[in-house]
């Protein structure tokens, strides 16, 4: 009894998730359109060149929002008819806290690489990422850290001659 109500709740939350994603996807289009029309999107007009550069983007944004609204309406209708309809993709539920934590660590790593180069952020954030990913073995974690951290840095910089970003130009960090 509890299991079936849990499954039903999960299906409702998945349906709500789909609705939220559809709504967010539709909202993105008017945002770009408004930004463009208000001149906030950095969309210069070159009148001397007989400007047509904004025509296609605007048409695409209108198509995007129109199709998105119809799809959102369809999703909403389906949701209100059967909120606990099973997911057609039959996927299992993700752990939201874990996903958000992994996403936050990955975003942090990517942003930190912009400011501090590859080596410093990877040394600091990769162990956290491995831990969040579910690595519990200390030996395995150290080997994975050495391969994916300093190992890849060495492979790309010295082995393949492709320089990864560094804090000090030409240095390891």
């Amino acid at each position, binding site marked *: 009894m509890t299991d079936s109500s849990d499954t039903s709740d999960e299906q409702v939350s998945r349906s709500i*998730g*789909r609705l939220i*994603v*559809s709504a*967010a*996807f539709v909202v993105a289009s008017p945002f*770009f359109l408004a*930004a*463009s029309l208000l001149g906030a*999107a*950095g*969309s*210069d*007009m*070159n009148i001397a*060149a007989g*400007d*047509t*550069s*904004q025509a*296609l*983007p605007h048409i*695409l*944004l209108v*198509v*995007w929002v129109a*199709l998105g609204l119809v799809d959102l309406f*369809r999703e909403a209708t389906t949701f209100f008819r059967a909120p606990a309809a099973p997911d057609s*993709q039959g996927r299992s539920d*993700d*752990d939201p806290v*874990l996903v958000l934590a*992994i*996403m936050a660590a*990955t*975003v942090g*790593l*990517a942003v930190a*690489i*912009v400011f501090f180069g*590859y080596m410093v952020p990877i040394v600091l954030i*990769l162990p956290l*990422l*491995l831990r*969040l*990913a*579910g*690595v519990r073995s200390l030996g*395995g974690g150290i080997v*994975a850290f050495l*391969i*994916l951290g300093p190992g*890849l840095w060495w492979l*790309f910089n010295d082995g*393949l*001659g*492709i*320089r*990864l*970003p560094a804090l000090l130009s030409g240095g390891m960090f």
Partner: protein
Amino acid sequence: MVDLTFLADVWAPATVVAMIVGTALGIIIGALPGLGSVVGLSICLPFTFGMDTVPSLALLLGVYCGSVYGGSISAILINSPGTPQSAATVLDGYPMALQGLAGKALGWSTASSVAGGLISCIVLIVAAPQLAHFATRFGSIEVFALILMALTCIAAVSRGSMLKGLSMGSAGIFLSLIGTDPVTGAARFTFGIQFFTAGLDLISVVIGLFAVSEAFTRLAQDGKNESVFSGVRLMLPSLSEWKGRIGNLLRSSAIGCFIGALPGTGAATAAFISYATAKQLSPRRDNFGKGEPDGVIAAESSNNAVTGSAMIPTLALGIPGDVVTAIVLSAMVVHGITPGVRLMSEHLDVVNAIFAVLVIINILMLILAFPIVRLFGKLLAIPESYVMTGVIVFSLIGAITVRGNALDGVVAVAFGVFGYALRRGGYPLAPFVIGLVLGPQFEENLRRGLLLSDGDILSFPTHSWIALVLFLVTAGLILFGPLQTLISGRFARSETARLSREP
């Protein structure tokens, strides 16, 4: 007289190593559940930037072909297809393994994959130059109509609703237009940020959407495999065992070749259609689903036959049929080769080298399958947490090294989050990527076409018979979705009514 100078590139040590490494990696990546062709290509992309054109394409094509075949190993041994393309192989491959015929099932799958791949190479070599020759008749309006048709086709056959597919295609084209307008030089949707003036890097977006979001999804779930058959040895079928099965092999390969050449359909569709056809026509149809080799032959020959024919529109027209060929196409751009209708005339040496490389890779698959199948049990012992963390780190490096800009890594991760949300929302990702790839060409040809027709877009369909046919097909594809829904709805209602009448 055929110019054979391309053979020097094909037999260069770097190309040979790239083919062997790429094919082996591809088989391994394909065999590990969760790592498909796109993730494999995304991981290998950064290694190609320091390489010459032919070796880099050899590596990527090796990963592509190898991964399509590799999916069958896990499909047969652990009842979990390594790639979606091998989902149909599970139906008869795993029951064969349960009967103690795992080695034989792998043998049928390997032989069928290699045969299907080689047949598709022949089709590619014959058809691509003919199509490219025909494509020289295409002007701006025809190219615009062709891209519109390809995008509609991809949206129509994408998983999920056609509305979602079309809106994703529109969003993809829109995002491809961010940056500097090539005609007027005006900045578009850059929000005053210097980084965006060069536009979004396609490879970073693809890596994010597919590899990073896949890693997020897999890490958030608990991937468990069913029973594993370890210590299995691959056993190729003897010639006498092929008796009565060659027709199935040829028919399934032909289906794969045809479907592969259509934009957006892909190897999974080909495998299921071939499997269903074989089930109807095979004299052993009653055994299907219980461990019938004909089922494995149908699925594996057709999904590998897609690999060569999917390159036909890519090489002849510059139109990628799916995400995998879009990545190969973008790798060509990185190496200074502009895909399109003139690729065959301007870079014939590279095209010929691709033909030769594809043939060699298919033969290499046969050789490399033996040791990799024996390794499989050990490979599967690597926990997914290590593999997926590796995918994230490789994806970041891949994105960063394309243009040498660390901000591309942030773009990749941002699109990883975006891709994860879209997957949860049931949005197909392929139309988005194809829109992103074809967007600049779409706009360029639309604007040229408008100049040619004095701004009258309504005159496009009457510009030539080619344009008319392409626009009619596009209109048919748009009507396909609602008609399908209507027909299936009526069928479902009549079935419900029939069942309710029955006592």
